[in-house]
Structure formats: C-alpha cells, structure tokens
C-alpha cells in the first residue's frame, strides 16, 4: 500500500513538474502546431511524401487483359522485366469490373488496362511514394516501345508533377486524366502533421532526461534517495509522470490538427493514440538510455537532440525523402509514420502497421532494461 502511495506521489508531482515549465510546454505544444502549419504552407508544392505504409515485400497490381491471352504474355514480360518482380505482385484479370473489386478490397494498388496492342491505361488510386514509383516504372518500360499510355489517377497534383518532371516520358504520347477520389489525397498538411508530431514527441524525452537528472543525480537526488521511498517506486513514478505529461501534450497537438486543421486521421483513431503513446514511451526510454551512457548531462542533451534530428532527417520527416538504407525502415520515425499514414489512408489495419507498432514498444522495453542496468551503476558511481 505504501509503495503504491509513494509511486502515485512521485508520478503526480513529476507530471506536474513537466507542465510547470512553461517554456517546455510551449516548445512541445504550441511550436509543433505552428510548425505543421508553416511547413505545409511553405513546402506544400514541393515535397514528395514517403507514405509507404503497405505490406513489406510486394505492391499488388492488377492487369486487365480484355484483348486475350497473347497480350497477357507481352504485358507480363514488360511488367516482370527489369527486376520488378522484387517489388510487385501481379494479378491478371479478364475485365475492369474484377480489377475494381480488387482495388476496393485493397488487394491492388494499381490497375493496368491494355486498351490495344499499343495502348496502355494505368489507374493510380492515390498519391504515394510506392504508387508513384510503380507508375513511373510501368511508364518507363512502356515508353521504350513508343507506345501510347493513359494514366488515370487520384486528384493529386504531386503525382502529376513527378511524372511530368521526367522529360523522356513526356516525349511519348501521354494522356493524363484526373480521377476524383474525394478527400483521400495526401496533402502537405497531412504529411507534416504526422512527421512533426512524431518528431516533437520524440523530443519530449527531454522531460524524462530532466526529471531523472534533477531527481536522482544532483542534490535533489541526495534528498530523494534518503527518503523512505523504494527506488523502484521512485523511478517508476518519474517515468510515468514524464510519459503521461508528454503523451497529453502530444494529444493536444493531435486534437488541434484534427479539429482545427481538419486533418482526417482515419477511422482507427485508437491506433493513432496508441502510436502516440508508443512514441512517447520510446522517447523517454531513449532519453534515459542516452543519459546513462553519456557521462556529462549537458553532453547527453546534445547527443539526444542530435540523434533525434538525424532519425527524423533520414526517415524523410522534413521533406518526405527517406534515405535509401535498409535500416531507415526500422527507425522509430518510420515505424510510427507507417502506422499513422496507414490509419490515415487505409480502411483496414495491415499486419505491417501492427508489427511496426510492436517494434516501437519493443525498442522502448529493451532500452528501459539497458538503462536500468547501466543507470544503477551510474547512480552509485564513486560510492
């Protein structure tokens, strides 16, 4: 009973401590709200968002082959050539109705319709990094034979500009027709809402770092450690206090983007909230981990902020251009954005969204364990 009481006391005061620093609250609540708006206005026309939230290995496409089996093999060769099989899984169907069914059930990202021997139609339902690359690959392949191509796509200017920027494709006879998909298109506001909330929530680890430094490692630490409170209760309370305060601040930003900026976060709001919590947990764990492995507290601050900027940068958080390294896929920003973009634009929750969220929590758990082991040594260093 005493242990629970102590834990709650530390939790409540730590929580209050996080909210009592007005400057930090401004940084973690007001600043992200402003920066999301500013970035989306400033970079709205130029960015290429990385919103690859599909399954890991293949992007499903459907080929409609009304002209007969002969066309299938020709198209198959061209679609399967040049290593495309690594990225795409192709389903061949006989008519457009079947293809649309597949599209509706999310089993296909792209419909390729063979109009005749020399003419190809692409339907790209919405703008995304993978769909853009897919469309470009198909267009490039088809263009080599100077055949005509028709692209039907979601109402995203970004994909149009991407395609238009490749001059050799423009040289071919290209017909582009808009396809209205209502509100589904990704805007810069959506993109920055996701990436900036993730980034600022990662920086909220600063709360954990400050609380640990203040409560365990300086003069206040001397006083805290001489109180009749167990270290488990003390550390648990500090962690939960920092985590809940950061999480609530993240929620304020999230709700602001939803109700004031009008961002549609999809139907699975609980998953977005859970992801926010996962990011905040990771942020606290990572901050404390850095704090215990770096000798000086001020240096730990610099290292922490540096790491978080690098993570945001390589995962494309500032401009949508993620670095092309395998590890980037496992950076916490990428994991969290997979879930958030997925919730925003998928009607269903994919396995990858679950596995990425699971990884995020697993990272936090492992970092907490390491920090606990190393932190104990640091706590009594020199004693």
């Amino acid at each position, binding site marked *: 009973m005493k242990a629970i009481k102590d834990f709650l*006391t530390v939790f409540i*005061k730590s929580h209050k401590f996080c909210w*009592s620093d007005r400057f930090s609250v401004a940084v973690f609540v007001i600043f992200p709200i402003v920066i999301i708006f500013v970035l989306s206005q400033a970079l709205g026309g130029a960015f290429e968002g990385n919103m690859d939230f599909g399954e890991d290995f293949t992007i499903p496409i459907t080929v409609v082959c009304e002209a007969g089996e002969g066309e299938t093999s020709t198209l198959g060769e061209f679609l399967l050539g040049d290593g495309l099989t690594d990225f795409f899984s192709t389903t061949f169907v006989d008519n457009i109705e079947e293809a649309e069914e597949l599209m509706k059930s999310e089993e296909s990202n792209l419909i390729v319709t063979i109009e005749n021997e020399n003419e190809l139609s692409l339907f790209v339902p919405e703008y995304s990094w993978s769909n853009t690359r897919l469309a470009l690959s198909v267009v490039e392949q088809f263009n080599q034979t100077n055949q005509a191509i028709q692209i039907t796509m979601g109402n995203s200017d970004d994909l149009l500009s991407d395609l238009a920027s490749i001059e050799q494709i423009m040289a071919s006879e290209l017909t582009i027709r808009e396809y209205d998909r209502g509100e589904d298109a990704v805007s810069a506001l959506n993109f920055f809402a996701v990436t900036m909330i993730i980034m600022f929530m990662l920086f909220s680890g600063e709360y954990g770092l400050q609380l640990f430094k*203040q409560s365990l490692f300086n003069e206040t630490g001397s*006083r*805290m*450690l001489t109180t*009749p409170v167990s270290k488990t209760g003390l550390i648990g309370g500090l962690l939960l206090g920092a985590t809940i305060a950061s999480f609530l601040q993240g929620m304020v930003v999230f709700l602001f983007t939803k109700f004031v900026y009008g961002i549609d976060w999809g139907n699975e709001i609980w998953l977005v909230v859970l992801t926010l919590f996962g990011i905040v947990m990771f942020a606290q764990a990572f901050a404390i981990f850095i704090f215990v492995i770096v000798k000086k507290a001020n240096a730990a601050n610099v290292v922490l902020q540096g790491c978080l900027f690098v993570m945001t940068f390589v995962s494309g958080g500032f401009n949508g251009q993620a670095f092309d390294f395998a590890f980037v896929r496992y950076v916490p920003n990428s994991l969290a954005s997979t879930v958030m973009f997925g919730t925003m634009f998928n009607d269903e929750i994919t396995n990858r969204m679950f596995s990425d969220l699971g990884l995020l929590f697993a990272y936090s758990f492992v970092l907490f364990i390491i920090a606990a082991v190393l932190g104990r040594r640091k706590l009594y260093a020199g004693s």
Partner: protein
Amino acid sequence: MLVTMNQVVKRYGTFTALDNLTFGLTKGETLGLLGPNGAGKSTTIKILTGLTSATSGEITLFGERASGRTRSNASKQRIGLVPQDFALYETLSARDNLEYFGQLYGVHGGELKKRVDETLNILGLSDVATKAPKKFSGGMKRRLNIGCAIIHKPELLILDEPTVGIDPQSRNHILAFVEKTAAEGTTVIYTSHYMEEVERVCSRVCIMDAGKTIADGTVDEIAKKSIFEDEFTVTVNEPSPAIPENIQKIAGIIRCSPIDNSNRTFTIISKRDSGNLARILEVLAPHTIVAVTTKKPNLEDAFLSLTGKALRDDG
C-alpha cells in the same frame, strides 16, 4: 546514543576520505562538524544517510546497525537532510516542493497541509508560497531547502553548510531557526566553514581534518586547546612612551605593543585566565582610558592551533 560512528574508514581508490573516524551523538545534542574542504564532513553525512557506504567501521542509527548503503525506512523517516546545494524543483511552487517531500516522508492529508503552512510561516515564506523557487533569492531558496527537510519533523536534522552564499538577514533567520529547533529537542548535525555560526548554534563541536577527528568537545573545551592567550586592546587619550614598559612589568603579560605610531592604542597579550585586565587598567588609568576590548581564544584560534591552517583558506 542516537548516532555512533566507530572507526569508520572510507576510501576512494587510494584516497582516504575518512580515516578511523569515531564520534557519537546523544539525543538533543547539536553537533557542529567543522573542518576545511576535504576534511571529510560531507563524506560523513553521506555515510550516515546511506548515500555512500563505508569501507570499514561500524555505524549505528537510532540503535540500529547500518550497513552498506542500506538504511531502514524507519531510520530514513527520522532523518532530515539539508544538502549543501539547493535540492528543490525549481519550477514547482514552494508549497508544491514542501508537499512533495512531506508526502515522500509519509505525511498526507490535513496533517500535511498544516505542516506546510507551519513550515512556510516558520521560514518566512508564506507570502511566496505559490511562487516557484527559480524566482527566489539565494536566502529564500536556502530557507525552502531547509523547509523540505523538516516538513516531516525529523528527530535528526543534518544541515550541510546551510548558509553558504546568503545575505546576513537570511543567515540570521536560519541560525535562529536552528537554535529554536535544537531547543525543541531535535538532534542536529551542522557542518559549516563559519566558526561564529558553530559557536552560536552548537552545543558540541567536532573538528575534522584529513578524514580524522582532531578535537571533540564543547566550544569552551575546544577553545581551551588553543595555544593562543587572552588579548586586550586598550586606547588612551594621553599617550606616553613608557606605557609598554610599565605594562610588561605585570606578571603574566607576554607582550604589549602599540598598533600605530600615535602610541595611543596598544595590543596586550596576557597569559590565559591570569586576571590581568584589572592590573592593566590600573596602570593605564592616569593616561585616561577611552576604549578597552578583550578577546578570548575562540574556535578559529583553536582550529589554527590544532591544524596549523586557517579554516577558510582551503575552502
């Protein structure tokens, strides 16, 4: 004995911070730990409170044997620690800080509120109870720092240099508070560089140097260990070159010398407790005495005698 430390040794690598330190403290005593930086005062406090462990030796707290860094919750509950630097949450209000530490020491509900109000009142912080310490002066922070250690009414209050860097008014407030707390029966361990503070508030003094106790006793007992004698300063209106010679004829006078060229003011050193003041005044009466000051050996002199160094030189 409320606290005993017997043959306690603390080593950090090859450096010996405490070298067979031995002292005891009975209930209601106010013990001043006096010594230059590096004497081992803070290490002693850390060992007592379980912030660090002794390399060897025996420690008992409230009759319980304390080993390593482990201290029972019952012992912790009875100790209040005022660290040397501010141990406060700078962005929480003064009231929040007091409540927080009160709760951690198991004070809750109406009792907590009552004690917080009392403590704020005692320390003269009632008017700024809702303000955060980051807006406080050094003196106010020091007082709140003490408040957080006394909110649970500890039996043993440990103050580690509680008046460093504050204004005379706040210092006086703190010293008056310590005197009052001691008078109410709280046992106090008070470390300081300031002799006059220790002389004022402590019933017993333990002088430490290089990890050892070099003197332990009341202020008077320790002062007597000084090699220095009684010192008088006398100013007369009608000076005469014969004054020093006449004074030195008195038995027990060690030295008499003018302090400036006017030959009006003299410093006279006499053997301790020789009762020479009356004789000196008798000799000087024809010269119209206008001022007399006397100085007995104090802790500063004793410290200098015992260690060969001034207390604050090393600090």
